[in-house]
């Protein structure tokens, strides 16, 4: 049928490939010499060989270098014989005067190949082994040329003319002799527009060469290759991002329009299906990575895709990319339109690597995947009920067509949807469906349904060996167990065992299982073997063996880890895998956070941000930043946190409801509470509540948080705390919370409960001070190791209080014990701007100094106390600072 493309592993002859062939001829002329003419040393010869090898390896890349780029590369590789190489290359091209010359050229090429059967090769003879990489390349070229029809040869010939013409404008400045009459007439024929563009490229080229040529003359290989890398890189980058920055400076504008032209031009050479698919995968990753961040313009990608679609109307995957692009720029109608169009054309059978092309699918297509994608799209756009309806249909259709793979994915998507939707009324929707999986679940709670769906999905994914899905299911499971602690059935009342079914070990196990993917993914039989970046990675890595293995900070700015630079040219981890592994680190961070170890959480987040920050989706990266900022706020005070927030705000687009905005409000609220500025706190609470949508069952988390914060504000307003009440009343609660924390494995919370208990004991009278101190000292390692600023300060102050109220303790002999603690507490509270506690600390300090008779210090502490008290009573001043 018309919609399905012909699968052709086509290998088309292009001018660039002819260039490579010419160079191959130089590398291995059919002459009987151990070292052919232009080479002065074996090392030089080998270098060209290596270069050619990388060229042939990268011939599957979607972008082929233009002649001038090739000449530039040659200049680096050929060192002193570069002029000869370039001359030879251009001369060979200008010698091609008619299509017949091409025929002769390929006949000559046959000569440099050794015969397949003759094993006898003289020692000093350079002959290409027909089965070597280079030999295969030559053979493929010859074969492809022989298959060309006469029209094909004509096309090749005219594209060679274009190929050389383009190079002329730039090579003119290097090689004036080349600028012969012929090229002048070509200039004549060119219209003014093109000429102007050529001028622009010339200028750009000149600037580039000016910056690139200086290190070249130094003749130090290191700087030389760095420069080349930069040159190559900018080239590649401009090519790759194509028209990404169309509205930049005039120079960039000109260059991008030339690029547009070259893109049109280049399309004369047909690409293989795999090349384009690989390229599109790369683009999809880019869309995912950059998401809606401000630096990335979706309209430029859109126009590029439009162009691609004009060039290759049968390439339906472009529609899918347009869908992705629209999805990330939050354009619902365009996204929907493109999604439907993609599946209408491709029937879900083109380019989807999650479905191996098995038998019997061609007749019915794979429209269940369309349902799956549509469901996920609705989910993303915040239509959970629609999404659920569509996914239910997806389950039904994939069961009907026994597409287990799709079923596994759909179930996973469904469980994700349900767990995100939370308590929303889903029963009516699920009730109407009658698929076995969901109907058994209809009588259960949402949580139970999520669990069942996950288990089902995991089971299927496991048996189908869908490693990515298995990994992500494990992660989802870990998340589920983190969020829903399961109690043992039939255990109520105070006597019940406090042992729960969920334990940290199982969470850890799930996360670990998820992370196994990184060692596993290579064995997955993926239909997409050619990753666009993979083939182009070869040329980029050309310099690696010679360059020093030192990764300086600035050169690694793009991929900021040594780990990834290794991976880059060894295996090149697919984006989706890196994404999943990154997610596992984020989840680890979260679980440590809950578990109560801030340093571990921070470490995992840092691992994520450095290793996977570039390759992951923008929303995940945003989350990581968020965690780091939260950590900063807890441990370094608000000033640092707000500074970091500013950076994050620049990096991520702050649209309404974004996590960053939420974080900002949270931080402001905390700070207002600490400062005692309750009006501001209340206002922020209201603002937070305003972020949530008014619809029922949506944004539940946000609503819960808003009301929680409101409650806290009100509590603070009434000055209600256990201190004001009877301490004895507080004791059972504190004890109960300790035992709960123990059973829930919440160590940090337990430590803080212990602290509260100690405070309560202390409140009962000075004869309990000893006991309180013991409790406090027991909790100290946890508090100091993992606790935030506030907790630590509180612990210090309590400790000092304990000492001071202990009758056996004498201030005059052991003043440092108390003063040290108080000083620590005071410093930390300063950073936190927690005036109330800070005032208490200074007060205690002043008292101690008073006892010791150190009047100066006493005055200092007293003035500090006064300052905090004033700040506490006049929160408006602080507010002005904040605004």
């Amino acid at each position, binding site marked *: *049928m*018309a*919609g399905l*493309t*012909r*699968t*052709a592993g*086509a290998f*088309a002859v292009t001018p660039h490939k002819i260039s490579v062939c010419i160079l191959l001829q130089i590398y291995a002329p059919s002459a009987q010499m151990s070292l052919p003419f232009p080479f002065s040393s074996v090392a030089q010869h080998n270098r060209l060989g290596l270069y050619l090898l990388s060229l042939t390896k990268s011939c599957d890349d979607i972008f082929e270098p233009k002649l001038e780029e090739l000449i530039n590369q040659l200049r680096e590789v050929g060192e002193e014989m570069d002029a000869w190489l370039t001359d030879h290359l251009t001369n060979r091209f200008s010698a091609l005067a008619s299509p017949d010359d091409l025929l002769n050229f390929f006949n000559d090429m046959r000569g440099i190949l050794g015969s397949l059967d003759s094993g006898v090769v003289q020692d000093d003879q350079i002959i290409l082994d027909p089965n070597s990489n280079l030999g295969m390349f030559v053979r493929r070229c010859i074969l492809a040329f022989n298959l060309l*029809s006469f*029209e*094909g040869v004509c*096309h090749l010939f005219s594209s060679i003319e274009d190929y050389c013409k383009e190079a002329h404008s730039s090579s003119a400045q290097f090689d004036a002799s080349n600028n012969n009459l012929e090229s002048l007439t070509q200039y004549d024929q060119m*219209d*003014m*527009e093109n000429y102007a563009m050529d001028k622009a490229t010339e200028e750009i080229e000149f600037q580039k060469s000016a910056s690139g040529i200086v290190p070249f003359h130094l003749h130090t290989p290191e700087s030389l290759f760095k420069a080349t890398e930069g040159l190559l890189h900018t080239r590649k980058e401009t090519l790759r991002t194509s028209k990404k920055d169309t509205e930049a400076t005039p120079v960039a504008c000109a260059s991008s329009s030339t690029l547009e032209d070259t893109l*049109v031009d280049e*399309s*004369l050479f*047909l*690409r*293989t*299906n795999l090349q*384009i698919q690989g390229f599109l995968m790369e683009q999809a990753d880019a869309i995912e990575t950059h998401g809606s961040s401000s630096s990335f313009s979706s309209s430029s990608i859109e126009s590029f895709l439009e162009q691609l679609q*004009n*060039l*290759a*109307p*049968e*390439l339906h995957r472009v529609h899918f990319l347009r869908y992705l692009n629209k999805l990330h720029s939050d354009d619902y109608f365009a996204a*929907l339109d493109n999604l*439907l*169009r993609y599946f*209408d*054309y491709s*029937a879900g059978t083109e380019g989807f690597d999650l479905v191996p092309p098995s038998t019997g699918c*061609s*007749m*019915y*297509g794979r*429209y269940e995947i*369309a*349902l799956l994608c*549509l469901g996920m799209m609705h989910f993303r756009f915040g239509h959970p009920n629609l999404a659920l*309806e*569509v996914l239910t*249909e997806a389950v*039904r*259709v994939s069961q*009907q067509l026994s597409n287990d793979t799709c079923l596994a994915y759909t179930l996973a998507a469904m469980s994700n949807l349900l767990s995100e939707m939370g308590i929303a009324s889903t029963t009516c929707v699920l009730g*109407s469906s009658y698929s076995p999986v969901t109907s058994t679940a209809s009588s259960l709670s949402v949580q139970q349904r999520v669990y069942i769906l996950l288990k089902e999905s995991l089971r299927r994914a496991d048996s189908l060996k869908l490693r990515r899905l298995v990994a992500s299911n494990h992660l989802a499971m870990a998340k589920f167990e983190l969020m829903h602690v399961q109690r043992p059935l039939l255990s109520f009342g105070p006597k019940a065992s406090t042992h729960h079914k969920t334990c940290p070990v199982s969470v850890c196990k799930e996360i670990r299982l998820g992370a196994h993917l990184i060692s596993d993914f290579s064995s997955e039989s993926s239909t997409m073997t050619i990753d666009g970046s993979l083939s182009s990675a070869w040329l980029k890595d050309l310099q690696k063996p010679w360059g020093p293995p030192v990764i300086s900070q600035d050169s690694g700015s793009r991929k900021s880890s040594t780990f990834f630079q290794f991976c880059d040219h060894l295996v090149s981890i697919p984006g989706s895998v890196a994404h999943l592994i990154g997610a596992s680190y984020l989840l680890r961070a979260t679980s440590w956070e809950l578990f109560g170890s801030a340093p571990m959480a921070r470490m995992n987040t840092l691992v994520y941000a450095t290793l996977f920050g570039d390759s992951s989706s923008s929303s995940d990266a945003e989350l990581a930043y968020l965690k780091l900022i939260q950590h900063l706020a807890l441990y370094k005070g608000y000033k640092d946190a707000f500074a970091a927030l500013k950076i994050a705000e620049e990096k991520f687009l702050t649209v309404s409801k974004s996590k960053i905005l939420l974080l900002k409000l949270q931080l402001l609220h905390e700070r207002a509470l600490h400062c005692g500025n309750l009006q501001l706190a209340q206002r922020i609470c209201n603002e937070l509540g305003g972020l949530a949508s008014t619809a029922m069952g949506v944004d539940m988390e946000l609503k819960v948080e808003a009301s929680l914060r409101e409650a806290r504000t009100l509590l603070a307003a009434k000055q209600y705390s256990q201190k004001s009440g009877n301490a004895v009343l507080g004791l059972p609660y504190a004890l109960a919370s300790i035992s709960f924390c123990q059973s829930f494995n919440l160590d940090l919370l337990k430590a803080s409960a212990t602290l509260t208990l100690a405070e309560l004991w202390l409140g009962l009278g000075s004869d309990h001070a000893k006991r309180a101190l013991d409790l406090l000292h027991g909790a100290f390692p946890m508090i100091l190791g993992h606790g935030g600023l506030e907790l630590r300060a509180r612990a210090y102050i309590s400790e000092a209080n304990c000492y001071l109220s202990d009758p056996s303790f004498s201030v005059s002999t052991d003043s440092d014990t108390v003063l040290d603690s108080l000083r620590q507490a005071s410093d930390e509270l300063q950073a936190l701007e927690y005036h109330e506690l800070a005032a208490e600390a200074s007060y205690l300090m002043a008292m101690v100094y008073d006892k010791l008779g150190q009047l100066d210090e006493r005055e200092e502490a007293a003035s500090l106390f006064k300052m905090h008290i004033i700040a506490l009573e006049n929160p408006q001043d602080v507010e002005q600072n904040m605004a």
Partner: protein
Amino acid sequence: MVSKDSCRNEIRAAIRQLSDRCLYSAAKWAGEQLVGIEQDPSNFTPANTRFQRGSSSIRRRFSTNESISTPLPSVGFSQAATPLPEEDEAIDGDFYLLAKSYFDCREYRRASHVLRDQVSKKSVFLRYYALYLAGEKRKEEEMIELEGPLGKSDAINRELVSLERDLSALRRTGAIDSFGLYLYGVVLKEKGNESLARASLVESVNSYPWNWSAWSELQSLCTSIEVLNSLNLSNHWMKEFFLGNAYQELRMHTESLAKYEYLQGIFSFSNYIQAQTAKAQYSLREFDQVEIMFEELLRNDPYRVEDMDLYSNVLYAKEACAALSYLAHKVFLTDKYRPESCCIIGNYYSLKGQHEKAVMYFRRALKLNKKYLSAWTLMGHEYVEMKNTPAAIDAYRRAVDINPCDYRAWYGLGQAYEMMGMPFYALHYFRKSIFFLPNDSRLWIAMAKCYQTEQLYMLEEAIKCYKRAVNCTDTEGIALNQLAKLHQKLGRNEEAAFYFEKDLERMDAEGLEGPNMFEALVFLATHFKTHKKFEEAEVYCTRLLDYSGPEKEKAKSLLRGIRMAQTGFPSMDLEHFPI
């Protein structure tokens, strides 16, 4: 009112000028209109009379302007706005003559080369036009040569760049005539610069209105009524032709018909107008009338292939197999490599149930014209018949991408997805098709059926759709019956009774009988009986007695129950408490 004579004179001059510039299809169109004008009875030649009088009896039956001689309401053309076309230079250059003969032999590049140094406007136009056509020809060839693994590659007319540059330079200096402007517009359109193209074409038709090709290009750029209204066109009778066509493409069929009716006052024998009228009537689903119009058209112009695909659609819809085969045979002999011919043959095979062959001919039609909308849709239908849903979806989608307003293809897409058991997914497509044709009950019924499927079972939504269908005058009466049944199913007997009564009225009016009628009668009889409205119940029961079968027995027992209830055993229901 424009006088027929002045029209005639204008067209005559225009035809000469158009053919001088090798704008053949515009000249052809103008020629058709020229003989479409009723001849002055004073200078009849016998040949004229025979040509024009062949058919008029039927024409007059359907012509709304019964008497052509009555003066038509003037629309306000000013005579001054329609100047006679200027005469060209009296003597053509020798090079021009040579170039024109080359052009006529389709040697475009040669023609343009011969004219390279000519300065007269006519020669300059012909030079660029020949160059453009040479580029087009090469483009078509390249399209086939470059057919790569991903289908058509990027074959473009390589002359466009230089043409645009030269023509824009000419325009800047003011040395461009209206024909040049037309070509400039075409070039701009192909380069994707639609607004400039529109401006250039408007300028062209304002200064020289007789070039139908320019009007059609302009029409293809008017994708919405807003765009159409924003055009600044000066008044001329050619504008009416343009508006008629444009309204038709924008699915404003009644407006379009009004324009053609008016034009028929002058061009009363124009085949073009008749075909266009038939097209509009076809969209309004007046099949009988359309069939007669096409029959007459074919009698006047037996070798006409244009628009005959539409005729074949009508014949297909009426299942007139013999007429369709006759038509197919005729167009096949006339010109078998026309997309229309292939489409007609495809329709013929489809009607015969030979779907593979039908697909083959639709394919051939599409090979000849890739943007042939109806062939894509029809091919989709064939694939649906062949149960090859993915192929059908693909075909429909192509139709939709060529013209997003094609409600038939949207409907086809919905149907295909529903067939595959994806009713929820299909709903989107039904919604799309209804958006473009909100007054068609068939579409509403299809959507309601989709809601009714056991997978979705969203009966409230189905009821809403059926109500819309009833409002759109559902001729087949499915909606009323379904509405009644759905209400019955949901236990809303009052509503059910209301709709059953309505349905009964409809069937009575149309003189129909059948199971639906029994169903309605039985329901109504029992309904009224349970509500103690015995008179009504009796009426329905007695109606049922006219028929034989189980309904009659049912009616008898119902009647017995009614009698019992009326004669003093109100609480006893014999039906439910058999003694």
